[in-house]
C-alpha cells in the first residue's frame, strides 16, 4: 500500500466529500465522521480501490451508502449534534445553510441522498439508481416527494429548473 498516494487522493477528494456529507448530515461533526469513516474504508482497501476504474466515483458511492445504511460507528469520543459548529455570521450563507439543513433533515436518509446526488453532484437518475441500489422510477418518485417537502420549508419561490430533474 502506498500511503502517500492515498493521502494525495484523499486530500483532493475530501472537500467535495465533506460538502455532500454536510448536506446529508446537517452538521459539522456528523459530516466529518462520515467523511472520515468513508476515507477509512477506502484506506483499508486502498490497494483495490486505487486500481478501480474510477476511484473518485467509488469513494463517493461509498460515502452515500454508508450514510443511507447507517453502517458506520461513532467512536466513544464523538457525539451526534444537531447544532451547527459555525458561529452565526461567520459564514456567508449561514442562514441559508441552516434552513436547508432543517429542510433536508426532515427527509428520510435515502431521500436526502437522492436529492444531494441529483442536485449538488448533478448525477443522472440512472447513476443515482445504480449507486443507491434503487430503480430509476424509485429515484424519481423519491425525488418528487422529497422536493415537495423541501418546498414546504423553503417557500413558494423555491423551484427546480435544471435539466430533466423532476
Amino acid at each position: 500500500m502506498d500511503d502517500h498516494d492515498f493521502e494525495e487522493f484523499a486530500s483532493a477528494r475530501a472537500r467535495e466529500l465533506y460538502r455532500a456529507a454536510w448536506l446529508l448530515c446537517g452538521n459539522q461533526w456528523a459530516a466529518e465522521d462520515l467523511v472520515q469513516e468513508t476515507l477509512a474504508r477506502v484506506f483499508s482497501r486502498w490497494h483495490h480501490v486505487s486500481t478501480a476504474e474510477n476511484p473518485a466515483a467509488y469513494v463517493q458511492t461509498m460515502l452515500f451508502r454508508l450514510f443511507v445504511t447507517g453502517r458506520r460507528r461513532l467512536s466513544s469520543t464523538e457525539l451526534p449534534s444537531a447544532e451547527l459548529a459555525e458561529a452565526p455570521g461567520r459564514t456567508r450563507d449561514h442562514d441559508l445553510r441552516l434552513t436547508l439543513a432543517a429542510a433536508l433533515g426532515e427527509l428520510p436518509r435515502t431521500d436526502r441522498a437522492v436529492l444531494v446526488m441529483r442536485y449538488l453532484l448533478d448525477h443522472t437518475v440512472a447513476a443515482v439508481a445504480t449507486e443507491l441500489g434503487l430503480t430509476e422510477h424509485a429515484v424519481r418518485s423519491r425525488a418528487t416527494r422529497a422536493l415537495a417537502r423541501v418546498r414546504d420549508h423553503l417557500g413558494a419561490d423555491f423551484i427546480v429548473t435544471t435539466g430533466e430533474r423532476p
Partner: protein
Amino acid sequence: MNDLAQLMERATDDLDPDVAELVAGGMVRGRRLRTRRRVATGLGALGATAAVAATALLVPSFVDGDSPSNDRSLPIASQPHHDATAQDQLPTRDALSGGRVVTMPAPSQLVDSWGSADRGFVAASWRVTPTDGSGAGQVSVLVEYADSRFHDAASALKDGTSSDGAAAKEAKVAADPCADAPGQCTKLADGSWLRTFTAPEPLSGGGDSSIIGAHAELWTPGGLHLDATAYNAMGEKDTATTRTTPVLDAEQLGALVQTAQLG
C-alpha cells in the same frame, strides 16, 4: 426564485473543512479496520476448525455509546426459530434495544457489530462457513426503525405531506412497497413485505464487480426494516471473492429475517 442546485451550491460553497485532519483521521481509522479484518480472518480460520451446526453469540447492542461492556445484548440463537407470534412485538422502537435473535443456518463467526437503539438501528456481520467446503462468506443483518420505504410512504400519506401529484404515487407505494422494487417481493400474512433478490455488487457507478450479493428485506407494518445480505466474499466491496455464489442464498436470507425474534 431559488433553485435547489444553486441553493446547495451556495450553502456549501464556503465550507472549509480541515482536510489534513480528515485525511489523517481516515487513515487512523483505516488502519484499525485493516487490523480488525486481519484479526477476524484469523479468528474465522480458527472458528472453522471448531465449526458447529449453528452458533450462539452475544452481540452488544451498544445502547450506551457503543459500549461493548453493556449488559444489554443481542442474543444470536443456536436453535432455529419459527415463532409466528414474534411479529406481535415489532411495532416499537424499544424492540431495538431489547435484542434480536438471528439464526445462522451454517457455522458462523461474529466479525463486527454496530449501531444502537438510540440511533435507530442495530447491525452485525458474520463470517459464515458452510460445511460443504465451498468457502466462507460474509453475512450482515441490519435492523432499523422507520426510514423504510413502507414506513416513509405510509407516514407521508398519513401526514398529508405529499403534493404536486406525488400523492398518487405515494398511495401506490404505501399500498405496495414492492411496486418499484427489483426481485421477488411478496406481502406476508401478517402485513409485512418481503423482498428477495440477488445481484452483482457495483464497484462504483456503472462499474462491474465479481462480488455477488444475495439480499432479503422485510418491512413490517410497525416500521421495522430488516435487511440481510450475503456475499461470495468477506465484504461488499472490491475484496477478493471466496466462492462462486453468496454464502447464503436469497431464500435462506428470507427465512432468516422472517424467523428473527425480538428479545
